[in-house]
């Protein structure tokens, strides 16, 4: 219990919450603001746990990007071909 309280205090005192707020945008290349980018890069270079967390999220991103898509059913392929042929 004591260690969890200590961890809680560490989290509340740290910049980790702010870093987490920007993490997914940062990893997706959506963080355009220069100050926020600089903050993220500084934080990740100094905070082992947030760096670890970002590595985990990168791995999840990689897995998601390589997810095998469901094959479009033949029935839908035929149906779409018919729709496209009948377009006027």
């Amino acid at each position, binding site marked *: 219990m004591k260690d969890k309280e200590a961890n809680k205090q560490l989290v509340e005192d740290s910049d980790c919450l702010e870093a987490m*707020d920007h993490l997914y945008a940062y990893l997706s290349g959506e963080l355009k603001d220069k100050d926020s980018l600089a903050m993220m890069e500084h934080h990740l270079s100094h905070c082992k746990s947030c760096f670890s967390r970002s590595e985990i999220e990168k791995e999840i991103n990689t897995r998601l990007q390589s997810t095998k898509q469901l094959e479009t059913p033949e029935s839908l392929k035929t149906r779409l071909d018919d729709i496209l042929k009948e377009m006027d």
Partner: protein
Amino acid sequence: MSNNKSKFAKNTLKTWFSQQILENRDSLYNVAYRLTRNSADAEDLVADTVIKAWDSILSLHEHERFRAWIFRILHNGFISQYRKSSKAPTLKPFEESDSGQETHEVAELLIEQPNDFLCWWANPEKNYFSDLLTEDIITAIEDLPKEFQLTVTLINIEGFSYDETAEILNVSPGTVRSRMNRGRTLLQKALWQHACDAGLINTTQISEYI
């Protein structure tokens, strides 16, 4: 003469449109399936989407925005048709976040995950992620409230930008960002729990933090 030109232009547009549909067909079906949760309804949704898209093709002024545009039609079609029907799958309710709720969820996650275990989890030499099937991650995503699931799918699987996703879902980019934060935080919590349940993380040591 002008009739010939008009016919040529229309045929060119048809050819281009058909090519776009072919290129996006699998993605359209996948997102439709994720929304409707069954193949027959997903097929209907995609077919309706293509028809509506062709009917309103002249409203698309920038052809490079086709992908986001047609996925918006798909999403709107789902909302208007399938949510009202008895066939609509049960959607997990969610509350649109206020920043307080979002901050609380993130803080909870940070507090629950002690630093030592994070470093272990992220160590590329450890085999947790090798053992974790992609299917496990997909299942965890499917367990998320629908709007978080859809946001994560559009951005992380289908590769849309935050702005495109905002256009598709008809929300602000700030809402997209908030949904990504909450969705991915919940996803990480689920995977963390999965790791504990699978015995991949030493729960005796974790209990010292509880």
